[in-house]
């Protein structure tokens, strides 16, 4: 089967899942089956058919698995949101359309990823501005300053800011890669670069600390720092930077833990939510109860105990941060494992693009985009199942949230563009894209194969 048709085939499960799922939830809610329950299936068919055709036309040789995984995740997301609140599902559907438009626009206008590298500083400044905007104009909701309002439309600039900063750092690290890997001194046999080359690391560190201090946005801070640390590691191949980065982060986090009750509470709740089960620990404890209730096979769509008598969801922020708990309750361990595996597949395909790229920028761009996506999924999934302290971020493509959906569509578009660019410029080894190929030696055949 050709690569392009493979994507089409893999989109079918997403379509079937949407149609069946909505029919199920609809019968559960209205107790009757009607054609309107199938409209979401039709909507999805149209949306992802357009996405598929757009990708075929605009990024012919891109990875065929990323889009179906995206489709499945957003399907499961909107299905759960629909089950929780029909109005929100309608808005989410609208955001999916907006996200798709941005997806196509990115693919249409960014035809060559080198453009991104050329404009890296502009992109970096824009990313920084988006983050600063939140700090200055942001409204504090649920203890974190994430939202900026433009009239009726609220959005989270950080969602876009972090992607732009990843693009910037991918470009910037290509610039300074050579110097970073130059060793001038050795201490205890460890090659150390001149201290001034730790600058990028320090910039990242300062930025992420600022995020925590001024926006109380623990999640984005952690995400940002982790993804950029991954980038620095891949750019230099030096665990030294990772070590320094982790030490720096831990030191900063330790100070913040002591200095900011907000951070302290998060950690304390994670360590022992049962000290205040009806107060601070309520959210995570209810999440665990929901998961326990779901068991292995789940209670079935629409059968979970998610909406209270008052009409509120039993877990606050159920449709956003805690959507995975709802999935865990209604679709069980089976559904939860499915979601985690989808993120793992996405991560695998993303890094595969990076491995196949010979161009440094393509390689770092794919690494950065994949890392930030995978790390975001890990942080929130780990948070709601009490593996790690909870940080309020969205589950990519699944959680309700316009900014998150739209930004992640842009991320997928960039990743597909990178994949397509790598395949077309490097598969034939035309030399056109092998910008800094020299000095790296021949590639081993034992790369990450599909």
């Amino acid at each position, binding site marked *: 089967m050709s690569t392009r048709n493979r994507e089409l085939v893999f989109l079918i499960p997403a379509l079937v899942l949407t149609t069946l799922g909505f029919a199920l939830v609809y*019968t*559960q809610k*209205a*107790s*009757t*089956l009607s054609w309107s329950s199938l409209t979401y299936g039709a909507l999805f068919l149209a949306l992802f058919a357009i996405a598929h055709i757009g990708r075929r036309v605009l990024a012919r040789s891109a990875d065929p698995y990323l889009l179906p995984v995206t489709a499945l995740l957003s399907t499961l997301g909107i299905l759960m949101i629909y089950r929780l609140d029909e109005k929100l599902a309608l808005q989410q559907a609208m955001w999916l359309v907006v996200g798709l438009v941005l997806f196509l626009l990115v693919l249409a206008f960014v035809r060559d990823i080198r453009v991104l590298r050329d404009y890296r500083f502009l992109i970096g400044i824009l990313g920084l501005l988006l983050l600063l905007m939140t700090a200055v104009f942001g409204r504090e909701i649920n203890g974190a300053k994430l939202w900026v309002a433009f009239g009726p439309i609220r959005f989270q600039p950080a969602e876009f800011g972090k992607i732009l900063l990843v693009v910037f750092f991918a470009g910037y690290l290509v610039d300074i890669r050579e110097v970073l890997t130059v060793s001038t001194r050795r201490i205890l046999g460890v090659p150390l670069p001149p201290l001034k080359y730790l600058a990028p690391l320090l910039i990242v560190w300062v930025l992420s600390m600022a995020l925590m201090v001024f926006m109380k946005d623990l999640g984005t801070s952690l995400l940002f720092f982790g993804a950029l640390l*991954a980038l620095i*590691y*891949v750019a230099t*191949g030096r665990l030294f930077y990772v070590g320094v980065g982790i030490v720096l982060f831990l030191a900063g986090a330790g100070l913040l833990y002591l200095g900011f009750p907000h951070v302290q509470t998060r950690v304390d709740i994670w360590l022992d939510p*049962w000290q205040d*089960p*009806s107060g601070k620990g309520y959210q995570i*404890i209810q999440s*665990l*109860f929901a*998961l*326990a*209730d*779901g*068991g*292995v096979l789940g209670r079935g769509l629409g059968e979970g*105990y998610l909406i209270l*008598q008052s009409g509120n969801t*039993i877990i606050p922020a159920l449709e956003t941060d805690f959507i995975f708990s709802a999935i*865990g309750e209604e679709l*069980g*361990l089976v559904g*939860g*494992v499915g979601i*985690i595996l989808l*993120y*793992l597949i996405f*991560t*695998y395909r993303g*890094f595969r693009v*990076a*491995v196949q790229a010979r161009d*440094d920028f393509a*390689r770092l761009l794919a*690494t950065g985009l994949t*890392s930030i996506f*995978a*790390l975001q999924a*890990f942080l929130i*999934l*780990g948070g709601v*199942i*009490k*593996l790690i302290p909870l940080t309020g971020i969205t589950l990519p493509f699944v959680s309700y949230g316009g900014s998150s959906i739209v930004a992640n569509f842009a991320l997928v578009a960039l990743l597909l563009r990178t994949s397509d660019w790598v395949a077309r410029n490097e598969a034939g080894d035309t030399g056109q894209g092998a910008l800094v190929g020299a000095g*790296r030696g021949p*590639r*081993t055949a034992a*790369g*990450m194969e599909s």
Partner: protein
Amino acid sequence: MDRPIRRLFLVFTLLFVALLIQLTYVQVWAAPRLKTDPANTRAIEEEMKVERGAIVSADGVELAVNRADGQYFLREYPQGDLTSPWLGYNSLRYGRAGVERVYNEELSGKAGILGITSYWDQLLGNPHRGADLKLTVDMGVQRVAAEALGDRNGAVVALDPRTGAILAMVSYPRYDPNEIDSLWKDINADPDTPLLNRAAQGLYPPGSVFKTIVAAAALETGTATPETAFTDTGTVTAGGYVVRNYGDQSFGEHDFTEAFASSINTTFAKVGVELGADTLAAYAGEFGFGKVPPWPLAGAKSFFPDPGDMDKAHVAQAAFGQGEVLATPLEMALSTAAIANGGTIMKPYLVHQVLDYHQNMLQETKPEAWLRPISSETAASVRDLMVETVRNGTGTAAAIGGVQVAGKTGTAEVADDETHAWFVAFAPANDPQVVVAVLVENAGTGGGVAAPIARQVLVKALGL
């Protein structure tokens, strides 16, 4: 640069594997503990959302209904405490008892066939609710029995000997199941044990009502006939134990029928000793002693001592229901049913039908034989003894004009206290439709206290 990327992917893979492990831990290993965590109100809230099936009596009286409060349903018992001994309660805090407990699967719509119908209901858009129960209890009889017993500690059982269907079951003291949550501590601390269904769980020395079983054994084995002659001098000594009649009466020359009708202990002690411990124990067992009553609710085993442990004195006492013999009112009703029903005891039951909300029958209890301790001839002979008891003996207070009543009194001696009053009866004697067993704790004689109660219940049950 390949290696860092592959390492990075490995790190992410490990992170995701950690997610999988933690998720499995929460959803599988820790799940039972989380589900029962005191902070977890899901089970309670969810239960409250189920519209439990209604419970109605045989004569159509609502015994357990629901009151809708928003999404939730609150259980109510319109008959108050009258039904509590067997209907039980459905408490979110203290669980369930009685029919509410035993038939919970049906009532909450979880059981077998209902699970399937509920699935179809979902597809067809019908509201899902539990199954209704139609009981065998006639609330008219139940109320009369409860009023006749009044506020004396005791129990009344009325059943149809032909089927085993329970028509009334009264136990006093009782509790109001509507108030179970607030009463819980008090009724658990109450020395009169209102939570105990005395009819099926209360063990009492049966006294002379046990003579129905001894007479049946004597007649069936040929140890005595209704005409066998005896002489009473007021006392008889067995194994060093002196047996006396109630009120220290002396009856002189009499036959076995009179011995039964007048409840002559001395004669029964002699008959008992002649039968022997083994035979008495065997018949007691055949009549249901030592067996848990075969019905869905809680019930105590009535007790007859091990014949190997019995000397003559024990045997003599057991022959008139004293010594170590203990019986529940239900057991005495069942053994009386053997006599009323030609020698066969039917399994007692309380739930007649399980119905879905369209009132389609899902399940029906079919009458089933339980024990057959005696032949129909013996049963007829014992019946005649019991008829004579009501006509001319100790049980005249149970006589009803126009209907022949068969009965037996019991006045069971209790150490240092007033005697327990017993009465077992059935009517009409030639076509038995109702068996009644009455026990009143520490209240006096069977003929004086218990027989009038039995009479009122019989009158109501027969529709007279």
